[in-house]
């Protein structure tokens, strides 16, 4: 299992860089993961999404998809793509330290 070092802590990640144990995540790690995803600074709007992702993961065991985020997070799909240009659900999940949202089949 590969590891990564964020905010001075070693965490285990999968091949795509998602934390495998969401409990290892701390808020300090978020901005460093964001920078590696090309997001220079996490604004309050970014944080709204990241916190929402974690809450949803804790409640449901999987992060929401972009479509569900657009309906429930208080941030529209258009703005989600402005905040996380490389794919909101995937990028926000990585920054939030939760597994990649389970895609539909």
């Amino acid at each position, binding site marked *: 299992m590969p590891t990564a070092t964020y905010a001075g802590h070693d965490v285990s990640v999968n091949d795509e860089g998602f934390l495998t144990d969401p409990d290892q995540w701390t808020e300090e790690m978020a901005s460093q993961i964001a920078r590696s995803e090309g997001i220079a600074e996490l604004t309050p709007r970014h944080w709204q999404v990241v916190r929402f992702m974690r809450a949803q993961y804790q409640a449901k065991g999987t992060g929401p998809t972009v479509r569900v985020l657009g309906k429930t997070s208080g941030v529209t799909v*258009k703005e*989600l793509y402005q905040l996380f240009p490389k*794919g909101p659900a995937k990028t926000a999940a990585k920054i939030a330290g939760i597994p990649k949202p389970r*895609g539909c089949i």
Partner: protein
Amino acid sequence: VLEADIDSMKRIVILGGGTGGTLLANRLRRPYRTEAAEIVVVDRDDAHVYQPGLLFVPFGLAEARRLTRPRWRQLHSGITYCQAAIDHVDVENDRVYLGNGNTLDYDVLVVATGAQLLPEDTDGLTGPGWQRDVFTFYTPEGAEALRRALDRFTGGRLAVGIVDMPIKCPVAPLEFCFLADDYFRRRGVRDRVDLTYVTPLDGAFTKPVASRQLGGLLAAKGIELVTEFSTGTVQAAGEPGGGGRLVSFDDREVPFDLAVVVPLHGGADYVGRSPGLGDELGFVPVDSHTLQAKVKPNVFALGDATDIPASKAGSVAHFEGEVLAGNVRRFLAGGPLAASFDGHTNCFIETGGGRALLIDFNYDTEPLTGHYPGRLGLPLLRPSRLNHLGKLAFQPLYWHALLPGRDIPGISPAMPVRGKRRPAAPAGHG
């Protein structure tokens, strides 16, 4: 009939008379005496469409009206068919409110109203280009209109796109591409058509082995693959700003002269009006192995209406139906439910030229190569004439064996492992 019998008579209400609702009702009718259980199926219309057939309509290989039969005729005698819109379900009080003002109380409720198309939820999709140069083949009317448009199409850019998942029959848009390639070849105009497949996924399909195989088929047929494209806007041809194009939320564009779009899907509207019953998209959260709804023990769901991580496909509804018929009986008898649905899915994928491939998978096993249901069966993940014949043979089986609730030899709810080739290294979960 003794009074005691009447008191103990149970009412099972099944909302939706499609694949799942019909075969479940028929499977439940047999084991109960009529005085032991009343079975009521509710649907807003009387048109049962063999949906797998819609794929062939745009190419003149099937006619929409021949795919449709009356819903009530598919139900065994002793089942009450109630044609009415559903206003909402009062889950707390075990009561369904119908659009005509009547109510139906139930002991067990089964939600089988499937998924609906939501084309108006995508910016521009139902604008001036809708049914002119932008089509869907997911409805009988859409498939017929697209047939006429393809007849007129003699060259240009044809884009086939999925707005977002989940959709019914996730392989159908791929099959459409393969059949379109074949269709244009037969007409001798293939070299004048640019075919593009546009998907929100990061490959041709969700699961690695199948994604490689299907991606290879697209490439071999000269069909361009555009991935991770989340369609935000559909701009029709002839509108200000130039020709038709699909525009993604991250501002990429796929130009088209003719677009075939699979719209967003959601659960039935009444699910959203029924407190606690559905999720954000109107699908019913259920236990993925027992199919019991999370909202209340006497509520179940099957088929496209659920939120389970399996394909929205007729084969899934079929396999779920066998498991759920047992679980409804167990529930009414006060026994524990069987957690036996394994996510089994089985799809023929038309690849053009009178051939098809077959995929067979479940929650834990991705589609693999090999043979189904055993080593001497149909080839998996490989185009073959036999699979195409299998797909055609399935239509009469659907009406005469699957819907009546008969067991079909060789096709059982549990996914067969025999005959499948495992990859050398663990592939991980898609």
